């Protein structure tokens, strides 16, 4: 693979991780006051900010309102300074539109949409720094923001990616690994019920290896879940203490 060795003979990846190791995840809930819910997440060098508004009355295009469930409106945008080369359009390009659609589908499946007929929930996701796994970080950030907003969810949605290099499945690909042209499988799951809400694969992979890669990605989702869960419990405990009620 032209100079760069994605997996060394000793079993280390270019950033020093082992194949099953995630990048360091740091997250915070409730970073904005004006939004109903917000969250910030760092997965390695990928940094994403998410804000949630609603449920409120449907805005823009009155015909959009659904009589039996809420409209989930997503907007994915990448800051112009998020990539190595300065981006010209932060949103509205094909890639962002596709990402917006994917986020929408993911959260349509997770939010208990029937509780709020004829309303709208807005999810705004901004990638501040892109270093691979943008979809995954966006989903994880949006999940935290939705929980912060108090919007009823079936479960957390946790997303993770996996690739396949030298007969080994690598979890949570960074930008260098993603751009090497190999296989990438992106998965979003509901970790408690082990249901898949989103699955995407780029380039080819032999059928025999699919289950190994998928297992690695699902394991990554479970690891992500543990981190998010800790963050949410800490946050809820903190806010409960702040308002004087005890969390018990």
């Amino acid at each position, binding site marked *: 693979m032209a100079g760069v060795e994605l997996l060394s003979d000793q079993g280390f990846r270019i950033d020093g991780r082992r194949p099953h190791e995630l990048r360091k995840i740091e997250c915070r809930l409730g970073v904005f006051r004006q939004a109903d819910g917000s969250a910030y997440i760092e997965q390695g060098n990928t940094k994403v900010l998410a804000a949630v508004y609603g449920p409120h009355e449907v805005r823009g295009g009155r015909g959009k309102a659904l009589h039996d469930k809420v409209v989930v409106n997503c907007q994915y945008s990448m800051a112009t300074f998020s990539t190595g080369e300065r981006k010209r359009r932060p949103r509205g390009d094909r890639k962002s539109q596709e990402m917006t659609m994917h986020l929408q589908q993911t959260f349509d499946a997770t939010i208990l949409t029937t509780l*709020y007929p004829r309303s709208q929930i807005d999810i705004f996701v901004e990638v501040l720094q892109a270093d691979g796994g943008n979809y995954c970080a966006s989903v994880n950030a949006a999940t935290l923001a939705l*929980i912060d907003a108090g919007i009823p969810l*079936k479960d*957390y949605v946790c997303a993770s990616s996996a690739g396949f290099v030298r007969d080994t499945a690598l979890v949570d690909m960074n930008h260098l690994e993603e751009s090497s042209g190999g296989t990438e499988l992106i998965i979003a799951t509901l970790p408690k019920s082990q249901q898949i809400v989103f699955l995407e694969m780029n380039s080819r992979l032999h059928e025999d290896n699919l289950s190994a890669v998928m297992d690695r990605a699902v394991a990554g989702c479970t690891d992500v879940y543990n981190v998010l869960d800790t963050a949410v419990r800490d*946050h*809820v*405990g903190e806010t409960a203490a702040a308002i004087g009620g*005890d*969390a*018990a």
Partner: protein
Amino acid sequence: MAAPMVKVPGQRLARKDETTKPGTGTYEQNGFIYSSLAGCVQKETSSDGSVQISVITDVQQTVVPSVEAIVTARITNVTPRFCKCSILTVGKIPLKEPFRGMIRKEDVRATEKDKVETYKCFRPGDIVVARVLSLGDSQSYLLTTAENELGVVIATSEAGASLVPISWCKMQCPRTLAEEFRKVARVQQEFLQYTDT
């Protein structure tokens, strides 16, 4: 802290049976009750002995108007055929932002529907208690005040004083003693208490 009592979305709370029922902040799947919010569990025992399990968060509860719900609305626009209003609260829960509502002429009162003149029933700025009739078209919720308990509860006169009800269809200004027409609500005792607070 009491961290184990914090429930998160997707967490299983209890098995659903005749005595345990899912409440707010929960959902039911495959015979189990799961949490849908991050918060603390609250168990409420009702009179028939069944326990309702809910998850309570510190964030303000979000509601949307549903059919048959009693809502409080401010009249914004009066035309001969209908009145437009913005819905401010659903039941006792204030909305974070108003929803649009509409009271059609024929839904203003139960009797003599065809003789209704909207401007003799509502004026812009009046606060009315109404019931959600249907979810209406995509523009707004359809409301009705065709019950004795529904109608105008707070209104100001042309002189700027707050009107006092004198009959079911009239209110009087305490300053000028001028009478104005309104579809007045016979406010029930229990509602009076919460409008005071």
